[in-house]
């Protein structure tokens, strides 16, 4: 499988937070899950790939070429779903997708009916509703559709299943698997271990701004499963002890 994206020794620091020497790659036809506790550096890493933040050092290589800041060509081949993105709020879902189609240079007349159909499948077919009136989950759906609409080579999804209803989550998972089979490389971050276990081929674990480990799902399952992998690498063994402490505080 060909390598689509490679991160080499990427570091970034701001305030008291430091992301240290992150190395990983994503290949064609592969789904990689980015796992880690809150504040571990998952979103920061994703934003470094998307150029929302500038790296302090290291290299990001996309299909053999270095990615520079504001790299328009790079973005043409990437689909990105931010964790808390704000689509243009005064457009309807259809108008927003049509806007993206225009930006990506896809012919609008051919896609209008298809957009309608897709929105109806995702339960977003109210033509008059502006995005600002949408719930968090509905906004996530719009962002997901915006990320995949141009059939990207690399799909980057930051917590894509947050606030998503079960039937849409199942639909999204199937779409991702189909895209993967078509050659797309996918990286997504998530806290939901069950989804990671079912969807990902490989897992990268990050904690306190450092890459703690990496492994294929098959290997991880052999060694006791994803929960055990997570607990070992993030020192999350004190759950029982901490539970007792909190109950004590409440009672006192």
């Amino acid at each position: 499988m060909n390598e689509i994206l490679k991160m080499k020794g990427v570091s970034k620091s701001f305030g008291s937070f430091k992301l240290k020497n992150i190395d990983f790659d994503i290949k064609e036809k592969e789904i990689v899950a980015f796992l880690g506790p809150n504040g571990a550096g998952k979103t920061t890493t994703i934003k470094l790939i998307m150029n929302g933040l500038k790296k302090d050092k290291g290299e990001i290589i996309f299909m053999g070429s270095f990615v520079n800041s504001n790299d328009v060509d790079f973005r043409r081949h990437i689909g990105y779903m931010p964790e808390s993105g704000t689509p243009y709020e005064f457009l309807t879902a259809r108008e927003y997708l049509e806007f993206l189609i225009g930006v990506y240079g896809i012919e609008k007349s051919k896609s209008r009916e298809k957009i309608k159909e897709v929105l109806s499948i995702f339960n977003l077919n109210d033509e008059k509703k502006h995005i600002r009136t949408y719930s968090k989950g509905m906004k996530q759906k719009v962002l997901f559709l915006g990320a995949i609409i141009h059939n990207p080579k690399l799909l980057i999804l930051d917590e894509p299943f947050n606030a998503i209803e079960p039937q849409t989550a199942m639909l999204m998972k199937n779409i991702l698997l189909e895209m993967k089979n078509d050659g797309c490389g996918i990286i997504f971050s998530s806290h939901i271990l069950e989804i990671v276990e079912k969807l990902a081929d490989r897992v990268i674990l990050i904690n306190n701004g450092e890459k703690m480990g990496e492994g294929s799902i098959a290997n991880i399952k052999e060694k006791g499963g994803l929960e055990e992998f997570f607990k070992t690498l993030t020192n999350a063994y004190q759950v029982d002890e901490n539970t007792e402490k909190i109950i004590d505080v409440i009672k006192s």
Partner: protein
Amino acid sequence: MIQALFTAYYKEWVRGGNGRRLLQVLMLVMLPVMIYLFSVLTSQGLFSRIPMVLNTGVFIVFIASSIYSFSYRTEAEDKLTDDFPMDFIPVNQGYAFLMQMAFVTILLYIVVLLSFFSGALILNAILIDGKRMYPFMQTLSTIKPLIFGLAYTIFFGSLFGGFLGSIVKKISDNFSGGLKRFALIAMYVIVFMLFRKYFTDSYGIMSNEGFLVSGYMFSISGLSSVFVNLFFDEFSLPQFSASMIASAALLVSYIGVNGKKWKFIKDFELHTDLRDQNVKFLSPMWNLVLKRIFTTPIIVLVTLYTALILFVAIAPGFVALYAAIGIASYVYLFMFLDRIFPSKNENYRHILDMIPVRKEKVNGMIMGIYYIFFLLPFFAANYVMMSNAFTMQNMLPEPNTLSQFIALYFLPFTLSAVIPSIFAANPYFLSENDKGKKQSRGFVIIVLILSYIFISNLTLFMNMYLVNPMFQDFVQKMFWNNGYYVFKTFVYFIVFFALYIHISSIFSFFMSFKENKNTV
């Protein structure tokens, strides 16, 4: 792609939220009206003192609207928590910027042209003593040269405003909160410096015609002109450069010591210990509100501000200090407003609904802080400046009648009621209301700016009325010879409304100390 961007801009712009609606009023109603009044009234030679004031006002409004129009560009602080489409779609930032500029230019040009024609039609209907004052064709022929000149003015105004806004955003990316907003003020200072001649002319005309009264002083153009002239006439360029270098060195050392990291300093208050202090005799709720507002920089500014006011009161001849007070008050204004209004992500409703505190108590506390720490220093500064600098120049008239008194104090009295009325309409510390809607900080700032423009212009016209018999005659003949009573009723209504807001807000502050058995 151009079509896609234009469509998105257009739809976002036309639909907009409350904040953008107000911006639309500013750009699409007030700007054409001001340009129109300026062009038509100048050419007719009527009320010869108005044009320059309006002209300068138009210019500033124009620059401001251009800058605020480019709201699609994201800010560094947002990138950590939010993503906007412009960050991840394959569009070059410079290209997007040019498209936005083109969009605003075309929009403004069309709107202003349309307003010229409709304005000419409205003026055509004015009959005084049976005589048509502004015949349609005559008005059109008068403003014909402007139609061509306007394209030039709008394009370069937008270009200048846009680039200026862009540069300021780049600079202010290093800061957040009130300091970031202060960077916008810095931009205005640059505008003043670049267009100094403009303001000097305005100031000169007003001074020669004896029009340096409070109405003019408080208008946008008046304040800007006086500020610029005081600054540059009394403060020579070497002094100015030296003070700027000293301030910059101070800022750098402050950041160097406290922030350590240049790029990601997130407002000074993150690096202060004062926030950990509690005032023991006050309730936890009071401590919460005080801690939120009184950060180290605000305390430093209050001290500096008070010291400057005292110094001017003692040594009134030191006119350069007025400029320093002006700058300190602007910084203070922005930092204070930033602290007193929660950001779009803060929603105190959820906190306040969970704890046993009455919303009236919270609002009363906010009002108390507003009156004591915000209005009081401002009025003190104004009092010292007016009673020293301007009585020194024998320009300040003594009010003899109630109308004159109202005209003199109309602006500070009514403008200071804007924030309390916003809080009254949006209780729970501006958090979301029962319908789930929350006013943004941007909305509040735009309301304040619009109120200032409206009130300052109304004050200007009131003062015009008091000193110009020709204008008195014109006003009286409006509304079927009842113009004076109509406008007087309107002004008195605003004054009494402001009075009601002030009294109820101060009352709510005192009531906030009232303890309830079941509440904190």
